[in-house]
């Protein structure tokens, strides 16, 4: 008879010896030779002693397992790893600054240190704003690591949006299109769109009628990448979709296809509504209010009402206006428009300039300014200046923002324009920001100081002759500076200093 095992003893102890007595005459394994030591007259003590023998034998006799294969090794990295000091600086940075620093590291060809990868991947899972920045410094090791966890895999997949070749990111499971979740299907479609735009469209079209409305809207947006005239027919058909959000997406994409039937219709609707009128040397525009929106216009996204004229102007391609009216852009946008319709028409142009990202029109419209009564509130259809300014080339944007700061106090609108200038700012803008902050602090002016300081922490150059960190810290220490202003200024100073230290590490 083989001896009792530990499980036998556990079973007996669980029930209780008073309910079911147990005589131990032998034990399994090496402990058996000590069975004689057990006290047959005290069965509880014997059970505990026997258990101790088996437990000790088990604890001392633990053997390793054989068989688990080591994980397949990560591919070698070519990019250098950030230094330990740089890693410490990353850990000290808040999410916004972290994204900036990671961007700098990627720009300089570095990858994240291996020990930091889990922290960065977790941060990117928590904060969507970090995804691209983290994906940019993963390196081969980071992508390999991310492949071990589904939540991290999504972060690594964002590499595609960056500069890395599509093949470098985590592969999409082959069956994802048929059986995956909506997000997985979107990822699958996006990847196919990247490799073969036409095949992606055809795959979407093939199952189109079986998709739910939400799926259609979500998946159609994938076609925004690699959009081409080949997509027009499919998108045009989507204008008749049952689902409003699908129709909105289709219109947005069609408007980006120059020469599509959609844009030709828009141009045809807009052209007759404006004409040039010349009386002697004075020229002006005369606008005619549209009669209404017929079914075809409604299909193209137009709705009857007081905003119809703005809608029609906004939908029309900008290129048609200067040619059709025979006036160059700069003059056209500053011409008076009869019947107090300047705000209505120019609001449409502003929308079109933003949609088409046309710097010439944007510059002209910004120069032309607000045609309504001074101090009046622009209507909701009137895009704010900073949205137009975002279309300008970076140096023009910086110059404009600097001029705005020099002209008046830092209003939230001005701060938005400053924020739109890519970092690091050129010296004139940087100096203008410091000057504006200094003016606000010393004059205790009404100004958006915390907002401008936060923007300055990201935008001020960390290297170069001027020490902007010291300048900010100096402002923070100004007498009578309100506490929340000086803490914002101090945070900005720290951000600039941290960026400087980081740049020193990666150069």
């Amino acid at each position: 008879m083989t001896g009792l095992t530990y499980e036998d003893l556990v079973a007996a102890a669980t029930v209780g010896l008073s309910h079911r007595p147990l005589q131990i005459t032998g034990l399994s394994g090496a402990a058996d030779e000590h069975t004689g030591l057990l006290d047959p007259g005290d069965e509880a003590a014997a059970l505990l002693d026997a258990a101790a023998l088996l437990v000790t034998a088990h604890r001392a006799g633990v053997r390793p397992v054989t068989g688990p294969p080591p994980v397949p090794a990560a591919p070698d990295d070519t990019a250098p790893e950030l230094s330990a000091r740089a890693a410490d600086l990353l850990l000290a940075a808040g999410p916004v600054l972290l994204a900036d620093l990671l961007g700098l590291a990627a720009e300089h060809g570095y990858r994240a240190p291996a020990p930091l990868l889990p922290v960065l991947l977790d941060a990117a899972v928590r904060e969507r704003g970090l995804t691209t920045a983290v994906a940019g410094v993963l390196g081969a090791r980071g992508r390999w690591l991310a492949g071990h966890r589904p939540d991290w895999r999504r972060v690594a997949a964002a590499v595609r949006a960056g500069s890395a070749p599509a093949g470098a990111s985590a592969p999409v499971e082959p069956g994802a299109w048929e059986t995956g979740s909506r997000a997985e299907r979107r990822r699958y479609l996006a990847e196919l769109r990247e490799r073969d735009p036409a095949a992606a469209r055809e795959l979407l079209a093939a199952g189109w009628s079986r998709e739910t409305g939400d799926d259609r809207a979500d998946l159609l947006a994938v076609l925004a990448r690699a959009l081409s005239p080949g997509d027009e027919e499919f998108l045009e058909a989507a204008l008749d979709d049952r689902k409003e959000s699908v129709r909105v997406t289709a219109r947005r994409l069609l408007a980006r296809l120059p020469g599509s039937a959609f844009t030709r219709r828009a141009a045809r609707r807009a052209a007759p509504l404006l004409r040039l009128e010349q009386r002697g040397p004075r020229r002006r525009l005369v606008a005619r209010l549209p009669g209404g929106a017929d079914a075809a216009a409604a299909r193209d996204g137009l709705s009857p009402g007081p905003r119809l004229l703005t809608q029609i102007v906004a939908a029309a391609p900008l290129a048609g206006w200067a040619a059709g009216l025979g006036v160059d852009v700069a003059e056209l946008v500053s011409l008076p428009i009869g019947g107090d319709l300047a705000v209505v028409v120019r609001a449409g142009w502003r929308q079109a300039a933003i949609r088409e990202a046309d710097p010439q029109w944007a510059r002209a419209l910004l120069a032309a300014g607000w045609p309504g009564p001074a101090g009046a509130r622009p209507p909701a259809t009137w895009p704010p200046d900073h949205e137009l300014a975002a279309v300008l080339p970076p140096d023009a944007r910086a110059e404009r923002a600097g001029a705005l700061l020099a002209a008046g106090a830092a209003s939230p609108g001005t701060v938005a324009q400053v924020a739109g200038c890519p970092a690091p700012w050129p010296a004139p803008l940087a100096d203008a920001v410091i000057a504006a902050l200094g003016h606000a602090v010393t004059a205790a002016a009404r100004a958006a100081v915390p907002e401008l300081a936060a923007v300055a922490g990201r935008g001020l150059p960390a290297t170069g002759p001027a020490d902007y960190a010291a300048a900010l810290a100096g402002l923070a220490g100004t007498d009578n500076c309100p506490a929340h202003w000086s803490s914002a200024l101090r945070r900005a100073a720290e951000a600039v200093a941290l960026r400087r230290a980081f740049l020193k590490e990666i150069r």
Partner: protein
Amino acid sequence: MLALAPDASSRRAAAGLAGPAPWSGTGASGELVWGRFAGSGRSPYQAVADLAGPAYKCSCPSRKFPCKHVLALLLAWAQGGVPEADEPSDYAQAWQRGRAAAAARREINGADPGPGVDNGGPGGAEGGAGGGPGGAKETERRAAAARRAQQRAGRVAAGVAELQMWLRDQVMAGLSGTTANRYGHAEAIAARMVDAQAGGLAGVLRRLSAIPASGDGWPGRLLGEYAQLHLLARAHGRLDALPAGLAAVVRSRIGYTTGRGEVLATPPVADRWQVIAVRNLPDAPIPARRTWLRGRATRRFALLLSFAPDGYFGANPDAALAAGAELHADLHYYPAPPPVRAVIGTRHGPPARGQRPEAPGDLTALLGDWAAALERDPWLTEWPALLAGTPAQARGRWYLADSSGAAVPLLGHDSLWPLLAVSGGHPVTVAGEWSPAGLTPLTVWHGDRAVPL
């Protein structure tokens, strides 16, 4: 120290009072610590503690026992804020005399000390061996100490016997019975062990109180703990017959502490000690930290144990050692085998940044060392490991595999990812704690840099 605190709020209150401001006339002599606390009352409270007991008295009206004043006094003493004195203050002496008389009465009457009267604690008080002047007073004090030691031995023996009975009752009635199958079922017997001044046993009992709520397979784990306790109780019964080493192990496991001075009297082991791993134990009765060292020349392991009664390690220089540091120092091992736990004696320089430890072992060596260590201390729960290995995966579980292909399970979920990131599927040097359930990785080396996991 603050394991003595009756609850968390007393601990916090004590930590707040431990500063020198409201105290006057504090002093320590031998195992007595005393001081006056200017509280809200008209006259200052008089607090006295006897570290040998531990036992305490305070003239404050608090019904918590020990009160915050006693705790604060002990905390201040532990931080070195109480000066050594030649002779106890009059109220401390009076209390001592009263206790001696009460003890004598108890011995005559054979009465059991009721809870709250001469309450014991789980020990943990180390040192306090102040050298007073010689002479008749010294002889008298030694005699008193010997008497106290004897009293304690008697109390512990009674407690151990009671524990043996309790363990037998558990397996007779059945683990699934109503008593056992409840969270906290062993709290009462743990409290009895505190009264019996067997703090080690109390600690084990408190820990195993949580086992019935620990999920599948708990009866097996619980019986294992019971069996090991029973083995310890049995060994205590024949302490005189045991080899000296094992007897020392049993005494230390039961709860007899070894004073720091006694440890420092052992021969020093000089080496450049590399800090290979640090493990925080925030959920222990007293928050603690295990700092694992390895000698560069001797290749010996050592364990420094630090306690943070209020959650902060503060100025404790041992707790300031981080993984990757290297310290040239003399170490003294505790007398109980196997020699692992140690204290730092003379430091030959400040801690410096160390390199990656040389010659990490393989799993065969680790398991051989573990089995040898268990022979000397069958109640060991963990053992230091310094390994060269690669993460491996099978059926969704993670392992560390050495170059021979042998593998052990990796414990601790959060530590896996940085380990995997640093390894990248290549062999790495890993330090951690081994237990029969697997390896808890605590440090991995990225080049020469130690990365805490």
